[in-house]
Structures are given as structure tokens and as C-alpha cells.
């Protein structure tokens, strides 16, 4: 299979008129994990959302070497965020089958990371096969999280963008999830995970984000606006 390399250079991002990311550079290749660390509010989630194409970047480039050129980085990626994207009134299997159908043909074509699992295999791997025909609303928080992970298994995409993947999981579920992420890495996938907890993963690189101190390039935050107000004061004085 192709060797992939996700390259971010000088990535910057504004949220709500404030710069939350500035000059973020990193490279992750196949069979590697990048752990994005930093205190709360430092832009870990924003970085993942920028890579996933959910938030527009203000600056910089994000490229995937070895990927399908006609598809965006986001189309090579699974995004696993805080929300489970489950419909409580649909059955577990209906939920999973929908996301499989919805993602499948657009899935990664530049060499498969590995064969996709069937829905039931995925549920079985995650230990929730017995819930397949039940409405997703009956699942516990941990089970819902596992069902959400199952989406990543039924459609193979090489990049996994994981935002606090172990939150809301008990010890056992965490072990299962970490095992699946490790499998994905060993199979040649690449992982970008934002977390404030230590994650025990193979081939790990770290990216430490610190709060943005440089002045935002956003128009209304510019210091040069002070001139206007200073002049006013002089006029009055």
C-alpha cells in the first residue's frame, strides 16, 4: 500500500474573531500517531476540526502525500469527536449501517489500510453485538461511545482524527479502543489524537500546543486601531 504522509505547515485558525492556532507545523506518516497535547482551550479540537475541513483555516497548508489527489484530506479521514452522531430511535444496526452506506463509496481508494469489517463483526469486536437490534437510545454512555467507534471500523479510511477519544469510557472500554487504534496504526493507518490524558499508543509523536500569544491578524483586534482613539483624546484635550 501507499505510504501516506499528512503535512501541516503554518496552519492558523480564527474562532469567533480570536486566533486560536498559529504557525502549527507537523508531519505524520503511515503507521504513526500524533498526540496533540496542551491545556484546555489551546486549540486541540480546533486543529482536528481544521484538518477535518469543518473549520476554515486562516493560513497555512494541509496536504496528504500519497493520498488520492482528487479527494480532500477530510475525505481520507474519520472524525471522532465529542458527539456520537447516533439517532436514539433507530436501532444500533440501523445507525451503523447508515454511516457505512453514507461513507463507503467515498472511502479511501489509495490502497486499503485493511479489509473493512461487517457491521456485526465490528459490533462484536467492541462487545456490543447483543444490542444490534435494540434502539440506540437504550445504550449506556460507554456503549454509545463504542457504537460510535464502530463507524471507524466498518468503513476504512486511513486517517483517524480523534478528539479526546477516551473521555466517557471506563477502563475496559478504553483498553478496547486503544487496542483498535493500535491495530489501525500497525496496519499502516495514521492517527491524530487530541487529548489531555496520556494515551498508550505505538509509534507516537507529540505536538505540544501552547496558547497563542501573537497578536491576531484579525482586522478588529489589530493594535493600530488604538491610533483612532488616541487621536480622539488629543482632540478633546
Amino acid at each position, binding site marked *: 500500500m501507499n505510504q501516506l504522509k499528512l503535512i501541516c505547515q503554518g496552519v492558523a485558525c480564527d*474562532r469567533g474573531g480570536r486566533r486560536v492556532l498559529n504557525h502549527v507545523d507537523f508531519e505524520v506518516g503511515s503507521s504513526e500517531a500524533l498526540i496533540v497535547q496542551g491545556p484546555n482551550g489551546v486549540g486541540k479540537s480546533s486543529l482536528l*476540526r481544521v484538518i*477535518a*475541513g*469543518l*473549520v*476554515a483555516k486562516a493560513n497555512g497548508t494541509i496536504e496528504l502525500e500519497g493520498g488520492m489527489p482528487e*479527494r*480532500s484530506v*477530510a*475525505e481520507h*479521514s474519520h*472524525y471522532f*469527536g*465529542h*458527539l*456520537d*452522531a*447516533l*439517532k436514539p*430511535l*433507530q436501532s444500533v444496526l*440501523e445507525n451503523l*449501517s*447508515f*454511516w457505512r*452506506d*453514507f*461513507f*463507503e*463509496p*467515498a472511502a479511501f481508494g489509495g490502497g486499503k489500510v485493511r479489509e473493512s469489517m461487517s457491521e456485526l463483526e465490528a459490533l462484536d469486536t467492541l462487545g456490543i453485538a447483543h444490542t444490534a437490534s435494540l434502539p440506540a437510545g437504550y445504550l449506556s454512555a460507554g456503549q454509545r461511545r463504542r457504537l460510535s467507534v464502530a463507524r471507524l471500523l466498518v468503513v476504512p479510511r486511513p486517517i483517524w482524527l480523534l478528539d479526546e477519544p477516551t473521555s466517557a469510557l471506563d477502563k475496559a472500554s478504553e483498553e478496547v479502543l486503544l487496542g483498535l487504534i493500535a491495530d489501525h496504526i500497525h496496519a499502516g493507518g495514521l492517527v491524530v489524537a487530541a487529548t489531555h490524558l496520556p494515551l498508550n499508543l505505538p509509534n507516537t509523536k507529540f505536538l505540544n500546543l501552547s496558547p497563542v500569544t501573537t497578536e491576531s491578524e484579525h482586522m478588529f483586534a489589530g493594535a493600530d486601531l488604538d491610533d483612532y482613539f488616541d487621536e480622539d483624546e488629543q482632540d478633546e484635550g
Partner: protein
Amino acid sequence: MSWMKSLFVREYQLANRVGGGALIGVLFFLAVVTIFPFGVGPDMILLSRIGAAILWIGALLSTLLGLDRLFQADREDGSLELLVMSGRSLELVVLIKCAAHWAATGLPLVLATPVLSLFVGLDFQSIVLVTLTLLVGAPALTLVGAVGAGVTVSMRRGGVLLSILVIPLAIPILIFGVSAATAGAIDSNNFLVPFLFLCALTLFGLVVGPLAAAAALRVSGD
């Protein structure tokens, strides 16, 4: 193509399962039509004159009622993020969601129209015309409403604002819809001219609605 079918089926099922589904819209339609005679009096001649308008306004309000959840539910549970980043055409996703929403909630309104027409004393000819115009025009209401739903998706109580934004957009649809419905005869120009305009508005909505709603949804991903 199978993803489109899957999306349509899921949206149709959810629209039917959540909050009483089609029944609740039809019930609201019935309630709106019922209060008119209490307001204007049980004068069957007057009611049959304004009956087409009552039915159209009832259908408009019923359509608006369910629209605020069109994208909001997906935003709240995180589905919207996945729909946006999947690489699928978001415009097409919006169009399919609108189609499923209309099939689940709009079509029952059209089917209920002949029955409700009896309450306002319409004759057979008028019943046919009102039902036909709603069948052609109500999708335009959903499509225009999708723009409002996309724009207000991030608001917790966006329903009222959605209606305020959408009602001006719905006025031309109402004008041509009611004009065609009250024309009297199906083979006259009085019917054909507004009816063709109504068709044009629906086709127009098919283009503008998904484009504008998808643009609004992309903004909300920020």
C-alpha cells in the same frame, strides 16, 4: 447511489418516528382549518370563497412547524459534522433531506387536503385544484424553509425566527398557489398562468434552497 437511498430512508424513518411524525403535522393542519370558521363564522358561502386560502395557509403553517428540527437535530447529536466532512455533496444531502422530510410530513398534508376541503365547503372542482396546487407548491415551501432552517441551525430557539425569515420568501408561492386554486376551471388561463408560475417557483426552489441551505450549514460548522 446507495448512500442517497440510505440517507432518504433514514431521514424518512426519523421524520416518522420523532415527535409523532406525519400525524402531528396533519393534526396541526386540521386545528388551523378548524379555527377559521370560529373566527369568520359558519357561513358556508364565505368559507367556500376563502377555503383555498385557508387550506394553503394551514399547509404553510404546518410545514413551518416541523422545519426547525430539519438540521438542528443533526447538529446537536454530531451527525451534521459527519455529513459536512464526509466528502458528499452537501447540497445533495440537503436536497435528499428535504425530499424525505416532504415525503414524511408534506405529502400527508396534501393527502389530507381533500378531506379538510369538505369542512370549508369546496366543490369537487375546487378540491381537485387545491390538492393539485398543494402537491406542486408545498415542496417549494419545504425547500424555502430549508434555507431558514440552515440559517437558524445554531440557535436554540430558532423556530420563531425561522418563520419570520421564511414567510416573506413564501409569499410568492402563496400568491400563485391560491390564485391557481381559486381559478375555477382547470383548462382556463386563469388557472394555467399562476399554476405554471407555481411550478417555476418549485423548480427554482430546488436549485436555490439546497445551495443556500448548504452554504449556511457550512458556516455553522465553524
